């Protein structure tokens, strides 16, 4: 399950935000940086393809972790999943792991 917002939603809100932005706005640089970031994230997600376990599995895993009954190997599974999502959301952060 890929978390929300979806790539399409991200591109959509980025485009809207860009359309509304005015160059004389003091936050213009900040807005432009956010738009670039959003597009880069969406592009990486599209390249990675549809990702991850189905939502029900994630839900079951989350419940098991809270109950203390998560199976062996859960940590490795989480680490792999999270690394894949960091690679999409902010690949620079992988260097600091």
């Amino acid at each position, binding site marked *: 399950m890929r978390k929300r917002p979806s790539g399409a939603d991200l591109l959509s809100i980025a485009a809207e935000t860009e359309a509304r932005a005015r160059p004389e706005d003091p936050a213009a640089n900040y807005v432009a940086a956010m738009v670039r970031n959003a597009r880069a994230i969406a592009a990486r997600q599209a390249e990675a393809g549809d990702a991850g376990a189905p939502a029900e599995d994630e839900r079951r895993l989350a419940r098991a972790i809270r109950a203390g009954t998560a199976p062996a190997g859960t940590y490795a599974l989480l680490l792999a999943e999270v690394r894949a999502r960091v690679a999409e*959301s902010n690949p620079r952060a992988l260097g600091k792991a």
Partner: protein
Amino acid sequence: MELSGEEQARVAAWLSDQAGAAVTVETTQRLSGGAIQENHRLVIDVAGGEWPGRHDLVLRRDAASAVATSHGRAQEYRLLKAAHKAGVAVPMPCVLCEDADVLGGPFFVMHRVAGEARGARLVKLPPSAELVAELGANLAKLHSIRPPRPDLDFLGAPPADPARAAVARYRADLDALPDPHPAVEWGLAWLARHAPAPPVGGAVLCHRDYRTGNLMIADGHLSATLDWEFAGWSDPDEDIGWFLAKCWRFGRWDEEGGGLGPGEAFVAAYERLAGRTVDRARLPYWQVMAHVRWAVIALQQAERHNSGEEPSLELALTAHVVPELELEILNLTGDA
């Protein structure tokens, strides 16, 4: 949005009542601020009364999108007054208006303090042990504020066990969100298993967002502690752990004191002023707590966009801060 001419007139009239003398607004300017509140620079002239002359002030009011769990302006004002009295570096709070007729909601006015709070800028300065020592001493002054405090009754009862109370609260927060977050649950399970004994002396007033980004620095010195929306009674180690957390070093990973200087200098100065030893072994626990808390907050902010409540690129992007927080949570907790 800037204050309209009408709003300025109403503020001037209200301030005139407070001052007992005519107040004219010389100039007003919207300042950059968070999504939760609006700050406006307000330069006024007071014709007489108790505070005659020109005053360079900041007016602070709620913006449209306040997070449900953060304090409103009236509460923040009371926190600032309490902190100011305890010697914490805060802009001097002047006056609180709870009359909705003036600006449609509560607002307060405080002295304007100059300085730089942006983390990305501050980490470009040379690292400074002296500066982080100031930040440590400042935090110790805040932690000298203990319950009971009738002026701070809106904070609720201090938790007997702040760590376990926080775990319960964040679990409830996750339950209120539509999607599962197993990596954050992993962090919470670790926090539940490793919860420390409650703080000796009980909970104290914690800022709970004491970090680079909320600390205004001018000429190498602390000029103001900002953004009190999350303040509450907690284990003082929570604030120390939050300040030292990796996620708030703005890329300067080696300077453990919020990216600004050595972590040791911060802790040592805190200890000197607090008159107690910080058990450094307890701090990693609160660093995990810091990352979990920030992940939960980021998820809540993203949900405001995802749910359609407040479509916003900025909020949508907060969802993408979560994976690196989860990675840090997993790195800190390890496989256990």
